[in-house]
């Protein structure tokens, strides 16, 4: 059985183990985001401002994870023939968020802490963010595929719909809370 650990570790890790690793990652990402003022609004928006408490940064990351996992779980329950477990869906999606640690981690370096528009630092940050977004995309796709055992059209369409809905709902939630 051939698989790549970097974009599909879920052949080996799922359930509670992935939940614990993912949860530690989420706490670290949120803390680094708080220290560097990196806001993740949904997954497609990134903003830089040291204007909130730690719990708000934690809420930004965890709300998207929770909404996306809930939607995946619902889609899996409706569309999959397998008996899926919530811990697998929530755990693997949480682990998939690990690439989001890269941007706040890089922003600890003084060169990336404050920068002007169209500066080298800004373009590097955008590049790194796009890279982590693609990595996250691959991870979360495999998390959904394996934890819900979906294939072909069912997998592709439900994945895209859940992704869009999670993005809309998480933005709405953040907007309501601010």
């Amino acid at each position, binding site marked *: 059985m051939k698989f790549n650990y970097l974009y599909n570790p*879920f*052949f*080996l*890790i*799922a*359930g509670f183990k*992935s939940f614990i690793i993912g949860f530690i990652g989420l706490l670290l990402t949120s803390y680094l985001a708080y220290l560097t003022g990196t806001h993740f609004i949904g997954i497609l928006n990134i903003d830089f401002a040291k204007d909130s408490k730690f719990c708000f940064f934690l809420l930004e990351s965890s709300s998207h994870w929770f909404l996306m996992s809930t939607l995946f779980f619902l889609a899996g329950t409706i569309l999959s*023939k*397998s*008996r*899926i*477990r919530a811990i*697998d869906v929530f755990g*693997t999606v949480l682990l998939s968020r690990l690439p989001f640690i890269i941007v706040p981690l890089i922003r600890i370096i003084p060169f990336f802490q404050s920068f002007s528009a169209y500066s080298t630092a800004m373009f590097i940050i955008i590049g790194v963010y796009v890279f982590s977004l693609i990595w996250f995309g691959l991870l979360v796709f495999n998390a959904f595929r*394996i*934890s819900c*055992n979906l294939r072909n059209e069912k997998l592709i369409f439900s994945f895209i719909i859940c992704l869009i809905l999670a993005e809309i709902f998480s933005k709405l939630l953040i907007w309501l809370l601010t």
Partner: protein
Amino acid sequence: MEKKLPLKCPSCENQLKVKLLFCDKCETEVKGLYTLPIISQVSNEDQKFIIDFIKSSGSLKIMAQKMKLSYPTVRNILDELIDKITILETNEI
């Protein structure tokens, strides 16, 4: 070298059946036309999975530990196997 039981006809790809059984002790031959049991019609890898699954008392958790794979991966292998067996059963009817 371990011999592999051929399941499909090399000429037309049809499912093979048993026509001759042979006792290698007294050299008795039994001729007839028998369909292979469904378990024999799946691949060696799938047969090994079925045996290991029975030995694990049907526990996917134990299977996952033995195979060093995640729980949903093992469950997906099992569901795939159920689909294969269902198709074979439908074809037999």
